């Protein structure tokens, strides 16, 4: 191997490695690494790839259930959904790149998560996106919203996968650090899942897709550093997405997967060729020998360092069965994609690369993966917030409702989802706008329900309760359409874990999530961690975004939030204590972010949810909405607006009653004649239930108050986001 100059402390620091980490590298190598090797260690040991701060805690999450085929550790989680089919899904962040270049950052985020899913053999059938932006007043917000939404759409629309739901939040805590979390759900035959463990000494390692350029070199390390004023200079590392090539890659890979040629397959995501090779080799307990010259290159004069660390998009690495190269190549030729045998599997246990036959890096695989640092970072638990005193309503309930519905938090997201093709593939049964999206399992009469959720302000106030609430809300959204919740993926977005209070938020949220997942039989099968989301030492709100899926055994038997008939009774399921701490009401109308988060009682959550799901499955109700941000009155208004049928409501004359955010609650509607029976069944099941109104007319009325027309409510609700975006 060529001798190179000594690695300097500055180079070590530039690669984001600590002195101790460098010492470990020296002992793993038994000599000084060269620059390419240092680069390889740095990306493999970056927070993004090694999960060094989070691994310890991630292990505490429940990941098993009889229906889980593959939990965390592979490219995505795999769940058995019956009839020989499996759902494969995962969520991932693309936060930093999206702040720097919102369109391309978001677009490549979607591209990356799609690859994680189809690399396992699934055809992607639905995308979701969970977005968090700074305050609407912040100078950058509008530009970021517009770019991110266009980028998510630009990529997903072009590849022809419907984007069926998501979330949008605004909060000043994200001013300098937005969150773009994308989720993909795919469908595969349960006995045709593809994994990444390489095997077969001598087998060809094949590179397919786009050529390698100098894109995103250091992307993985950038994703794990805080922002500061020099961030602007890092811009040229931005990757540009090519959804057209991705579409071809999906088709070509699925075509290849239908043949009997693949031993192992892995997409090239963060840390590109390095990470994919090392993971495939490590999982298979083998070595990889790569010919750098054979890697298809877009630019002249790329160094091995650049080739190995490039994050060019739309590329995959495959280990083929012996003798199948020509068959595979023909498929990629047909789709006009690059195809190259770039190396082979070895029994050396080493990861080696050659340029013109000369070895340019040589690293033992096992320690490269297993000696990677793991930190049990110190953490402190924040003090529980003081309880909230009595709250004086600043205005009457109807004007309060109107203000909430036409504000940044609760206004309609139509402006967003209409820029996403949500009907392509012709299987979208419930579009964005409901609690969970429903996508038909193609060619069958069953469906998948999909939802994403997280309430970061709860997580800040009380990480433990917030983590549990995020899981519970996803479960509730899936339940509200009548589906049986199966499993979740997560995207854990936090600040700098080296600060004990941030680490405390992380630990608290994980504990809460774990508890909820256990109590609800809702295991975590895949996920992603994004740390260092801070600017100038100011961290984002702790945001453990949760994406969940559930199964609907009969497509027709589902519920929707829109009121369907006049004369229905509206029944509130679950106990209402009037919890206003950390509520949207308190925050938006009184400017106070105070008090404890709502209590999450998982036993009650499960009992109430199972009861509601039973009613839907039994055909007793077809109209249901879960209660979340904004509480009871907001949920009731959403049902009325969606169905274009009015509501007359009665209840306590108390802001907490109408706007409190107590958990484990649903609103259901059904013809009056069935109401008594449902109330009786609830009583028998120990589930609190009470009639709070009935449907009809064109207005929303609170007992004894002035009615408001649905048209007027809808006007403000629909107008806020488009008006905001227009008045830039």
């Amino acid at each position, binding site marked *: 191997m060529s001798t190179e100059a000594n690695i300097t402390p500055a180079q070590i620091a530039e690669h984001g490695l600590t002195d101790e980490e460098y010492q470990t590298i020296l002992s793993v190598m038994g000599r000084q690494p060269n620059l390419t090797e240092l680069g390889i260690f740095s990306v493999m040991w970056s927070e993004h790839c090694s999960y060094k701060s989070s691994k310890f805690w991630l292990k505490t999450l429940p990941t098993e259930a009889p229906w889980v085929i593959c939990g965390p550790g592979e490219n995505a989680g795999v769940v058995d959904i019956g009839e020989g089919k499996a759902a494969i899904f995962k969520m991932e962040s693309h936060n930093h790149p999206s702040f720097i270049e919102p369109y391309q950052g978001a677009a490549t985020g979607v591209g990356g998560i799609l690859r994680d899913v189809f690399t396992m053999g699934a055809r992607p059938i639905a995308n979701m996106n969970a977005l968090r932006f700074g305050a609407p007043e912040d100078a950058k917000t509008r530009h970021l919203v517009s770019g991110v939404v*266009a980028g998510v*759409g*630009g990529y997903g*629309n*072009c*590849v*022809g996968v419907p984007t069926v739901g998501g979330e949008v939040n605004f909060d000043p805590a994200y001013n300098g650090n937005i969150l773009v979390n994308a989720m993909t759900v795919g469908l595969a035959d349960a006995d045709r899942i593809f994994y990444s463990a390489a095997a077969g000494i001598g087998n060809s390692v094949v590179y397919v897709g786009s050529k390698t350029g100098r894109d995103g070199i250091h992307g993985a390390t950038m994703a794990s550093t805080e922002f500061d004023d020099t961030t602007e200079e890092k811009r040229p590392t931005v990757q540009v997405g*090519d*959804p*057209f*090539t991705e*579409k*071809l890659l999906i088709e070509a890979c699925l075509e290849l997967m239908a043949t009997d040629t693949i031993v192992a397959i892995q997409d090239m995501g963060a840390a590109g060729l390095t990470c994919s090779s090392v993971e495939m080799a490590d999982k298979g307990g083998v070595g990889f020998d790569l010919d750098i010259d054979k890697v298809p290159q877009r630019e002249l004069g790329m160094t091995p360092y650049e080739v190995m660390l490039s994050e060019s998009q739309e590329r995959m690495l495959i280990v083929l069965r012996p003798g199948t190269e020509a068959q595979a190549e023909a498929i990629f030729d*047909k*789709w*006009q994609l690059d195809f190259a045998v770039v190396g082979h599997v070895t029994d050396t246990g080493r990861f080696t690369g050659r340029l013109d036959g000369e070895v340019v890096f040589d690293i033992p695989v096992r320690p490269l993966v297993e000696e990677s640092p793991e930190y049990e970072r110190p953490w402190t638990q924040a003090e529980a917030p003081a309880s909230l005193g009595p709250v004086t309503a600043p205005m009457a309930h109807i004007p309060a409702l109107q203000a909430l519905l036409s504000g940044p938090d609760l206004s*309609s997201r*139509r402006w967003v*989802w*209409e*820029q*996403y*093709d*949500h*009907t*392509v*593939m*012709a*299987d*979208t*049964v419930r579009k964005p706008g409901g609690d969970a999206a429903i996508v*038909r399992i193609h060619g069958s009469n069953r469906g998948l329900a999909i939802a994403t959720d997280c309430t970061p302000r709860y997580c800040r106030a009380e990480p433990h309760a917030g983590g549990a609430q995020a899981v519970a809300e996803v479960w509730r959204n899936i339940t509200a359409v009548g589906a049986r919740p199966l499993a979740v993926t997560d995207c854990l977005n936090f600040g700098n874990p080296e600060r004990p209070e941030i680490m405390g938020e992380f630990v608290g949220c994980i504990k809460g999530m774990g508890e909820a997942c256990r109590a609800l039989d809702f295991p975590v099968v895949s996920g992603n961690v994004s740390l260092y989301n801070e600017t100038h030492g100011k961290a984002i709100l702790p945001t453990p975004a949760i994406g969940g899926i559930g199964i609907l055994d009969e*497509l*027709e038997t589902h519920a929707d939030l829109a009121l369907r008939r006049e004369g229905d009774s509206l029944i509130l399921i679950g106990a209402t204590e009037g919890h206003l701490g950390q509520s949207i009401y308190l925050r938006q109308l009184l400017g106070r972010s105070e008090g404890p988060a709502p209590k999450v009682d998982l036993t009650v959550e499960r009992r109430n949810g199972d009861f509601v799901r039973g009613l839907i499955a039994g055909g007793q109700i077809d109209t249901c909405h879960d209660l979340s941000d904004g509480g009871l009155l907001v949920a009731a208004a959403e049902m009325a607006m969606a169905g*274009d049928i009015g509501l007359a409501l009665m209840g306590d004359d108390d802001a907490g009653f109408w706007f409190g955010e107590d958990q484990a609650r649903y609103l259901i509607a059904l013809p009056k004649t069935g109401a008594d029976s449902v109330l009786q069944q609830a009583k028998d099941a120990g589930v609190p239930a009470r009639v709070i109104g009935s449907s009809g007319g064109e207005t929303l009325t609170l007992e004894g108050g002035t009615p408001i027309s649905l048209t007027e409510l*809808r*006007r403000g*609700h*629909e*107008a806020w986001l*488009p008006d905001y975006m227009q008045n830039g």
Partner: protein
Amino acid sequence: MKASVIVFPGSNCDRDVQVALADAIGGTPDAVDMVWHGDREMAKTDLIVLPGGFSYGDYLRSGAMSARSPVMREVIAQAEQGVAVLGICNGFQILTEAGLLPGALLRNSDLKFVCRDVHIRVENSQTPFTNAYEAGQTLRIPVAHHDGQYFVEADELAGMRDQDQIAFRYCTGDDDREANHTANPNGSIDDIAGVFNKRKTVLGLMPHPERAADATHGGTDGRAMLSSLVSALA
């Protein structure tokens, strides 16, 4: 009745239209031939469908590169012999780029991709594509496009009107209660949503009839377009 769907690189509604057509024909999906864009020959068929999607990523101009695909020579030849050709969304863009239909499709006037249900009025029901509808009937059908703004020079437009070449126009629907929607989703000239060639053997439209062919998915107002074709061409 034999129907063929052309698959371009980046087509993404090919399966959707295959399923809907097969349903209209009353067969399984393999009742519909899927033809690869690179094929230089295509068996004689009764109906050629150019599906929606982002062929070639919509790069350069949407439809431009596909219109120059090898198979398009065959499509043009069969179209000249009177074989029915239906272009949906990206298929419509390809047909204008290939010169089988007049005009061009420009970026939506608000520059944003739009996916939602729109209403269209049937302007000419005297064609194999539309004979199952009444003239003046309003359909509710989804659109999903970025480049749907139909444009044609004024004198050519006048000629098209005279020849009854306007197939559909965007209009308001009485069940349209969603806020902030204009009837015309993309700024198309004369609210045009779909056009015929002079002989009414070629139709291009931006809305997706195949996404409105199944009550569970997006309504059924588009189904009659496919079934009327099937019965007219049987």
